[in-house]
């Protein structure tokens, strides 16, 4: 039994970690594409079309990976976690259903028009399709975050004979942690996409791409990151306070606070030890955590001692939280430094370009770390206070799960390698491509009129 439990958890973690990589890019990349397309429509300058064309290919690839890894998720609940649907199916089912009905079909259908229909529909319809795809990906994020948040802070239901029944759908949808988590996730997607665009564009420039398109894309992305990062810190802080209110044991694990204290120190580094229930090699700022969490120097913060047996494993939550913060800080520094240079009209040095290239996937690191904080932080519960993870697991033979787990891991390793290699390969290819082809030049605003003028003038 323990084997199936561990294997199923590993498999779910592998599936969802792999899956989230792609939506975390495509949700915001859809909006970037819409922005590029709008700039093109307004200015008629082909460079925006070039930018669009490069990134729409990245979007197509990313979206495909997101879709296929997402289908896996919809099977996982039944194959490995039958207790989940049996207990909270009345609530989880309709929320997942709304995601499929309102988001999946919308994005999938209009993606076809966005990718292949540019010469078959009027320009405004194509732009509309681009917008609908962006709206679709965001809607899909909305519904899945609703369900995920409900699992953290369940509301609007009652338990009858061990099964959850919905009593108030509005309370279910707008459960206490949903708005914070949704904002946090959408901003994270914005940052992930921005650093991806900046990194790949920097890579093109460094490989001798002197065209306008990568410079424009880089500038747009870095400025967006510079604006979003401080907002994200603010939202993250609010999300943390919300967690303190509803899931204090998670915050205690994030801070490795073993005992309830007034004036809790902010632990910068430590080796949390579950056995002795204390921190080894602790480096801390006195009263720091109380100040952040209660906005008072001597505010009381509940420690893990209050939740003995019902709190998450401390070390992974503690480390993942610090990894997320450190990555976020690095992103802030790089985004602001680069923006300052760009706004002063300075050229980016090789060192800055290299830094941006190294940060290409920084959004992934921060996103995954953040999800680990919140999801491991919910343990031992699958649905806080309602259903434990151990009670939801399947009773099929462990060998089957081991087999599928190995299969998924191999597939994911192959695909992730191929994805990253392909992105950089597309970037290298783009270096060689002409900025603007004649056929695109004809689409430029005023071009035809100007050509006619020249012709009439006998040039």
């Amino acid at each position, binding site marked *: 039994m323990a084997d199936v439990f561990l294997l199923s958890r590993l498999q779910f973690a592998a599936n969802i970690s792999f899956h989230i990589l792609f939506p975390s890019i495509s949700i915001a990349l859809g909006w970037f594409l819409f922005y590029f397309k709008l700039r093109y429509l307004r200015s008629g300058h082909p460079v925006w079309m070039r930018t669009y064309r490069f990134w*729409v*290919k990245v979007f*197509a*690839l990313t*979206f*495909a*990976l997101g*879709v*296929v*890894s*997402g*289908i*896996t998720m*919809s*099977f996982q609940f*039944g*194959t490995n976690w*039958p207790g989940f*649907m*049996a207990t909270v*199916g*009345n*609530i989880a*089912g*309709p929320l*997942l*259903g*709304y995601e*499929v*009905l*309102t988001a*999946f*079909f*919308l994005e*999938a*259908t*209009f*993606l*076809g*028009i*966005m*990718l*292949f*229909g540019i010469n*078959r*529909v009027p320009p405004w319809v194509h732009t509309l399709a681009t917008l609908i795809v962006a709206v679709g990906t965001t809607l899909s994020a909305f519904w899945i975050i609703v369900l995920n948040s409900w699992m953290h802070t369940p509301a609007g239901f009652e338990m009858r004979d061990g*099964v959850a*029944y*919905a009593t108030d*759908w509005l309370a279910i949808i707008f459960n206490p942690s949903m708005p914070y988590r949704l904002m946090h996730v959408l901003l994270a997607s914005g940052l992930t996409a921005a650093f991806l665009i900046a990194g790949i564009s920097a890579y093109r420039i460094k490989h001798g791409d002197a065209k306008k398109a990568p410079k424009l894309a880089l500038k747009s992305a870095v400025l967006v990151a510079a604006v979003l990062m401080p907002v994200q810190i603010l939202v993250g802080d609010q999300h943390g306070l919300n967690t303190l209110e509803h899931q204090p044991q998670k915050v205690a694990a994030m801070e490795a606070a073993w005992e309830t204290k007034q004036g809790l120190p902010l632990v910068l580094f430590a080796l949390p030890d579950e056995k002795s229930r204390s921190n080894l090699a602790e480096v801390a700022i006195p009263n720091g955590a109380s100040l952040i969490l209660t906005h008072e120097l001597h505010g009381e913060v509940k420690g893990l001692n209050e939740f003995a047996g019902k709190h998450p494993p401390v070390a992974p939550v503690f480390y993942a939280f610090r990894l997320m913060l450190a990555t976020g800080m690095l992103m802030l520094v790089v985004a602001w430094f680069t923006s300052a240079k760009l706004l002063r009209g300075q050229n980016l040095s090789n060192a800055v370009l290299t830094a941006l290239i190294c940060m290409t996937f920084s959004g992934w690191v921060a996103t995954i770390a953040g999800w680990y904080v919140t999801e491991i932080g919910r343990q031992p519960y699958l649905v806080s206070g309602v259903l434990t993870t151990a009670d939801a697991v399947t009773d099929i033979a462990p060998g*089957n799960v081991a*087999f*599928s787990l190995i*299969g*998924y891991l191999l*597939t994911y390793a192959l*695909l992730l390698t*191929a994805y990253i290699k*392909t992105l950089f*390969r597309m970037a290298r290819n783009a270096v060689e491509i002409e900025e603007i082809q004649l056929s695109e030049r004809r689409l430029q605003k005023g071009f035809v009129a100007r050509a006619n003028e020249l012709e009439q003038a006998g040039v």
Partner: protein
Amino acid sequence: MFADQNLPIIFAGLMALAVVVYAILDGYDLGVGILLPLNNDKHSDQMIASIGPFWDANETWLVLAVGLLLIAFPEAYNLVFKDLYIPAFALLIGLILRGVAFDFRTKVREVHKGKWNLIFKLGSLLASAAQGYMLGLYVMGFQSSLNAHLFAALSAVGVSCAYALIGATWLIMKTTDDLQGKAIHWAKRAGQVSVIGIVAVCLVNPLINPAVLDRWTTAPTAYFLAIIPITSFALLALGYTVLNRLPLKDDSGCWLPFVITVVLFLSCFSGLAFSYFPYIVPQQLTIWQAASAPESLRFILFGALVVIPCILAYTAFSYKVFWGKVEKLEYY
């Protein structure tokens, strides 16, 4: 109409709709994948271009079908996927590989394109065969006997051929010249094997499920139900005749094999559906036993009634945009 006891019927109907639309739509694009030639780059490009704008939305019908099972009949969902763990895993790996191969093949270096073509073909075949295997085990009531697995293997071949058939007829409609000629040839071959598959299911299904035998042989329902096999075999014969005459001058009738195959799919599916109704898991669970709480079903139903017509409308719009013969592979 939305009384509590009617909700399971409505949801069973919606699920049937999702499954059959899935089998038709993803059927043709999986079929095109199965048929992908590995030695003809021009043809494989054209074939993939013909399904490019659609495959993603087609696959979404599977998510909807599984979603409806999960939403409306959670107990059946748990039961089915526990028994089908390994085939479901194979299906997912197949769908993952083919879904991404689609994009990778055009973006990697020319020397690797062949590899991704192969992955696309094998992924499509694996996904189709896994679906057939699952269908076979479902018909056999999830027994784990050797016979059940043999039948499931036969069903895997049958479903793959049925998908190849609908894929080939899709290509007849969407392509011209030598590729169209090839597609006509593929459609004949796949059609021949599909006949064997359909006959096998028609024989085995009533033999192992006494309730099914009863339904198909008891008057008066039997008279109505007899329409189904008669239609199916008439369609197969008609389809074969049409294939023998194609291609016609000015390409008239190129859409006919596809439409015939769609009706054949509908007919076969309704045969299965009538065999089991009201059971959602043969001999184990009826739709009423497996249904979720009415308040949950009603909440999703109102949304579905608004959204499904919209989905059908913009799906129709998308098919209108990409109407006609496929052009050269043009990537955004």
